[in-house]
């Protein structure tokens, strides 16, 4: 399956693949964000690879890390082929200023909530998502909690007290 997948990328998307990586048996392909949708569409259409199952979408923030030079955010697509019993990852790197990538909702219904969660927690914009709104955090919360620069000492929405308005006892 690993060879078949490499062949698939070599034949159709040679320019789109930045790097192929294998770490502890997990195969991942770093691809260009603009070709993500086309690759997923082709994977779905390929009957011998039979990659029909989008297991998960998640994201990483490489702020202040050596890896940041390739783009601050990383969105990880966890794909699985049920008939071949094979799992691999598609990874795209996005810049920190305006992280956006095309939504996969048109291909998988399950991408809906996963993308909403990534948007909520990491602030990545999925273009073409029909309802890209908060899913887990409170409506009053500003910012995206899983970003590395999210302020942890600031409680919001405020239930107790924040650092610059200490309670009576501390004053």
């Amino acid at each position, binding site marked *: 399956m690993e060879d078949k997948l490499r062949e698939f990328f070599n034949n159709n998307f040679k320019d789109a693949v930045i790097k192929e990586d294998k*770490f*502890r*048996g*997990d195969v*991942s392909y770093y691809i260009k964000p603009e070709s993500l949708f086309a690759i997923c569409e082709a994977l779905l259409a390929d009957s011998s690879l039979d990659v*029909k*199952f*989008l*297991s*998960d979408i*998640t994201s*990483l*923030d490489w702020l202040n*890390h050596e*890896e940041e030079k390739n783009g601050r955010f990383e969105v*990880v697509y*966890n794909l699985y082929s*049920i008939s071949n*019993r094979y*799992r691999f*990852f598609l990874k795209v790197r996005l810049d920190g200023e305006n992280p956006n990538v095309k939504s996969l909702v048109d291909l*998988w*219904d*399950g*991408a*809906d*909530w*996963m993308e909403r*969660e990534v948007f909520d*927690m990491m602030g990545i914009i999925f273009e073409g998502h029909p309802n890209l709104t*908060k*899913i*887990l*955090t*409170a409506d009053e919360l500003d910012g995206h*909690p*899983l970003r590395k620069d*999210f302020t942890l000492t600031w409680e919001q929405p405020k239930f107790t007290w924040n650092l610059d308005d200490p309670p009576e006892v501390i004053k």
Partner: protein
Amino acid sequence: MSNTAKTVTLNMGPQHPSTHGVLRVILELDGETVVKAEPVLGYLHTGIEKTMESKLYYKALPCTDRMDYLAPMSNNLGFSLAVEKLMEIDIPEKVQWVRVCLAELTRINSHLVWLGTHALDLGAMSMLLYAFRDRESIVEMYEACGGQRMMTTYIRIGGLAQDIPKDFEKGIRNIIKVINNGLNDYETLLTNNEIFINRTKGVGVLTAEEAISLSLSGPMLRGSGVKHDLRKANPYTGYENFDFEVPVGQNGDAYDRYTIRVEEIRQSLKIMQQAIDGMPEGPYRAHVPGIVLPPKEDVLYKMESMIFHFKLITEGFKTPVGSVYQGIESGKGEIGFFISGDGTNKPHRVRVRTPSFINLAALPKMCEGNMFSDVVCAIGSIDIVLGEVDR
């Protein structure tokens, strides 16, 4: 409640007995028919993924119990396996067998609570009492192993928290007997019960294509006729040594999910029987100095072990740069841990692919166009734990 010209918007939850926690669903009704169902989540969001980023790997482990509190051992196992994959730790054979035994015990625990509450939603109150009566033997086993009835944290990175109790074998054999007897009770009560069949057959139907497109896993996926079980497909912790069947449904309705879960309890008993019969002898923790905590007995009497213990608790271990994913088949579906190490002693990012959250996304599709009274049955048949949905 607000009235428009044609439809009525009705709020269900978050405090509602049949939403299994704090799930809120906004329903748009046309008479008795559901036009639109929109789940609203986040009432139990505690930021567990973010919390784990600021903890050493050993100290992040107890967070996993708090997600799916009905299946703590499965979550412990998933996280431990992911860290072991990242650090390339080999696990002693006995630990693997104990883990299999406990993971199956946890599956039964999770299914029993589901069975009781799901039947309760549909009006069969005595089922809840039977299920909790038999579950008691399982939580007592947890207590004997890890010292706690729910948040066990018994399966640790590199092995187990402590050696299995002396009467482990006897206890497991007793549980197998108790659940086997109990299964007869449950099936007599429900399987051919006309009310139960009327309430569940043809409710919340999902075809195989829909189930795959929605990324469902566990009994939700198998109920729709897709034979996929990570224990068989990508065996972990030695599942390839065990002989068991993967039950598959045909119609993809709530009744099929019920029969699958009951059959899974039976198969879990079979696996536990094999595990307890062939349990090998050996250490309860891998011997990897500097990464895996030394056994407690050694810490008390050996200086090197004492030093390693102290260093591991205060500083932890450093991981390589790279990310791993380990998915396991918990009672509810595929629970996966995606851990990204950045060369320090704390995880750079822990992502938990929780089955409850992703399976719950199927709720609108299961409800829309169907009767209002079936919403409760549809929610029940997904088997959600809100601690895991919201994390």
